């Protein structure tokens, strides 16, 4: 396909979003059709691009010096763009139903759809500057979504989110500058772009800068100690928490970390350095920290948010292994976790939407009244635990295989952390399931007489996600191969 489409898929949703309030005001009856079709169209074009990739990238304009805003679709971008564009139409369908009970539908969809374009911008970015720009933009367009409900809580959460994200970007900025000056180019090249002649004697500073950059982007991926925005941002409407705070936004952080590690600084330079060890310890700590906090939390969405923190660090763990296998495993978990987490969040959202219950102790006996939602929730819980046969196991297996392959002692501890976290995951997810299916003896079902399964708009995405989790779990070979090829640069 023509490379102009690369530009189109980024800009089109932004425009669609921009005109959403206008359409809402004038032709309210067609509002959903307008949005749904636009988003679907964009996704179709993205998938078209994936299969018929343009040979070269496209440069939009020169910023200053040799810095350009440019798009190109490489392997890593393919994975992220494909993932995002698969999930977005489904999430939009879900939000149509969810937003019937919230106010300011138009404003919500304005930013929600714009975020689609911006996220694709990150996926398609050809160089560091473009990615950085869209990364900052992503922060800005998602803030209104976090503060959507306009409660005091939401305002505080959005303020925190904003400050954390921009602050993180400020540190990532340092990395960008170093790449501009010490790299042969700012474009992303697998294996890194650092110019060997220039870095002589400056290795330590560069490693330090790498840590800054990684943690800076890690803020979006909620790496400890910069994670407290994520559970707080759970006040946003569920489609936001599900799609953005489990997939698009947080995975942008992880994606950026991959870019920095594998495509800018280069693993040759980083492997075995103190930076790698330091980050690995942080990531391992986050894995366990997220899980333990999730266990403590009684608010359903916040618990899932903490779970996200821990799972994101699985991805980052794969990233800091710094081998092609590690990147492949990280990508695997990125995709698998996307399905698992969006699914469990959507279930939580369905529960909130149908009943207004937010806390886990209020969910007693719900499984009988919402059998479909709870069945799917159970599947996602089991998948998150990493039971074989569902997708969570595949990514854990790959992560562990990558860690073992690198033969670093610290990485053995990493596997330990993964397993410890799996146990904690079992605890915090299955207690919800058990409570839903097995209310205490003599539970009065009349008390939850109003509870029932949501309509097809919510169930269709949920079912698709459940099926996807299952398929990825038992037939993962083509995907894993693809990710490995991406990681080796042969895709």
């Amino acid at each position, binding site marked *: 396909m023509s490379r102009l489409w690369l530009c189109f898929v980024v800009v089109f949703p932004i425009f669609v979003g921009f005109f959403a309030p206008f359409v809402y005001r004038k032709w309210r009856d067609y509002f959903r059709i307008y949005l749904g079709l636009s988003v679907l169209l964009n996704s179709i074009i993205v998938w078209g691009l994936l299969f018929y990739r343009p040979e070269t990238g496209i440069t939009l304009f020169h910023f200053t010096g040799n810095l350009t805003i440019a798009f190109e679709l490489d392997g890593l971008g393919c994975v992220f763009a494909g993932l995002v564009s698969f999930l977005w139409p489904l999430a939009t369908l879900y939000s149509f139903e969810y937003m019937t009970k919230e106010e300011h539908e138009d404003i919500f969809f304005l930013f929600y759809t714009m975020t689609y374009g911006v996220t694709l911008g990150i996926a398609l970015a050809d160089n560091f500057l473009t990615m950085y720009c869209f990364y900052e933009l992503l922060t800005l367009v998602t803030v209104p979504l976090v503060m959507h409900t306009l409660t005091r809580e939401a305002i505080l959460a959005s303020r925190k989110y904003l400050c954390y994200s921009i602050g993180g970007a400020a540190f990532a900025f340092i990395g960008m500058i170093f790449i501009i000056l010490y790299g042969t180019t700012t474009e992303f090249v697998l294996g890194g772009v650092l110019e060997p002649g220039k870095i002589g004697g400056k290795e330590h500073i560069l490693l330090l800068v790498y840590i800054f950059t990684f943690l800076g982007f890690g803020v979006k991926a909620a790496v400890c100690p910069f994670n407290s925005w994520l559970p707080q941002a759970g006040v946003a409407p569920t489609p936001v928490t599900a799609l953005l705070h489990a997939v698009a936004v947080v995975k942008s952080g992880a994606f950026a970390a991959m870019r920095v590690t594998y495509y800018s600084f280069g693993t040759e330079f980083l492997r075995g350095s103190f930076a790698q060890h330091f980050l690995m310890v942080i990531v391992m700590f986050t894995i366990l920290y997220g899980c333990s906090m999730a266990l403590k939390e009684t608010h359903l969405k916040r618990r899932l948010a903490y779970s996200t923190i821990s799972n994101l660090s699985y991805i980052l763990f794969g990233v800091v292994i710094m081998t092609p296998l590690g990147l492949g495993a990280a990508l695997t978990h990125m995709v698998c976790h996307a399905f698992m987490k969006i699914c469990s969040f959507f279930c939580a959202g369905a529960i909130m939407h149908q009943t207004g219950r937010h806390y886990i102790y209020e969910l007693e006996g719900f499984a009988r009244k919402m059998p479909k939602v709870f069945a799917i929730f159970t599947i996602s819980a089991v998948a998150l635990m990493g*039971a*074989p046969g569902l997708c969570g196991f595949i990514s854990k*297996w790959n992560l562990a295989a990558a860690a073992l392959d690198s033969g670093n002692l610290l990485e053995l501890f990493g596997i330990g952390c993964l397993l410890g976290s799996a146990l904690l995951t*079992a605890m915090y997810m299955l207690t919800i399931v*058990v409570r839903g299916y097995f209310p*205490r003896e003599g539970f009065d079902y009349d008390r939850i007489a109003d509870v029932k399964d949501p309509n097809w708009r919510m169930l269709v995405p949920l079912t698709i996600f459940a099926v996807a989790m299952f398929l990825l779990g038992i037939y*993962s070979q083509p995907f894993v191969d693809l990710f490995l090829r991406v990681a080796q640069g042969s895709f």
Partner: protein
Amino acid sequence: MNHILLFPILFPIVAGIMLLTIIKYQNRKPLLVFVGTVLGVNALWGVFAMCRVSEGVTVFYLTKSLPIYFKVDTLGRLFASLMVLVWLLGGFFSFEYMKHEKNEQRFYGFYLILYGVLFGLDFSGNLITMYLFYEFMTLTALPLVLHTQTKEAVMAGLKYLFYSFAGAYMALFGVFFMGKYAKTLEFTPGGVIDPAVLRENETLFLVVALLMIVGFSVKAGMFPMHAWLTAAHPAAPGPASAVLSGIIVKGGILALIRVVFEIIGPDFIRGSWVQRLWMALSLLTVLLGSLLAFREPVLKKRLAYSTVSQLSYILFGLSLFDRQAMTGSLLHIAAHVFIKVALFLTAAAVIYMTGCKRVEELRGVGKGMPVTMWCYTIVSLGLVGIPPTSGFISKWYLAAGALHTGIPVFSWLGPVILLISALLTAGYLLPVSMEGFFPGKEYDAERFQGKEPPLLMRVPLMIFAGFTLALGLFPNVLTNILSAVADFLM
């Protein structure tokens, strides 16, 4: 043709899921017919399949190098046939017992699913398939544990779950390792790892082996991870505790045998500190279980502690890495299945008929329920190890094997502890029979008058008691097979 192996795995799972979701029975009768049919058909098919098929079946690949692969070998046959027997009889028993519980349909749904999952576990031909079914066994057994939904049962269920997963994940650590270093994950006697690789990373592999042993032993209730067992088994409804204590825990043992003898290889562990630690832990558990059982007043809990202790007999036998001891272990597996299921079914029958749960309430129970109590007494004698019951044979082999190995300290300490434990076993099981049949004067005779359980309950009990005796009287058939298995594994 080989794919008929899949039928006994999938059929009950599908039937169980249907029972949970689609089919809604208003009356008990059609439900029981349905469950009975599935149980029966599947048992026949399962037996047929495992007799006819001896080649492996690869179903599909989870991911590269992780095939889902089934293969039936003698070990699998042993476990599967025990399981089928218990599942059938336990099922029939529960037809009567479950009358006084709620949510029957759910119970049978999971009972059937678990049936299929256990077939899968027994038929697994490689590590990853086994691990898959192992995890699902844990998960699908959970609803049986917390079936009554009392606060106690739910807490016990969660405890069961978390202990099991802790163990499973320890084992998974090892599975990851094997995935990296093993040539194949298919079960091969003598292990699948290149001895050169093993020697190179000896410490690492020993730690991994320990983790896997401890991890899978969680299911078998080995100290220090035994606490779940005594909480979960008594909390479940009667038939469920019987199958849990009889069969599910054996899942852990099967996994352990597979991993130690067919993945890591016995030669690597033999003589290492891991073996000594394993022996020490199992002996400690034998003693500890018996002691705790001895001072436990609630019958079902007492039986659960007894399970802890008896399973560690098996573990101890395995840890010796001796042909004879191995035979003893395998024999004890069979013996313990019949005995413990029978014991729990007795307890269930007593609870069902009279509501008595504590040991001291059972004075004079033999007067009212003689058949039940006779069965109880026979199998108790079996567990203590008094000839001519099956327990005697297995313990004989265990003790002989231990003495035969000549490992310092353990070769004589083991038999001594087994003996002490046998005495304790007698001490905690037989008084129930004695007081049941000879209550003295001051007891409530009315209470047990004519409380003999119905036929559906009595028959399974009598069959199990019969097996216990039969094994003791004609041990040679089984011993020959099992020592062949032991030879094969060593």
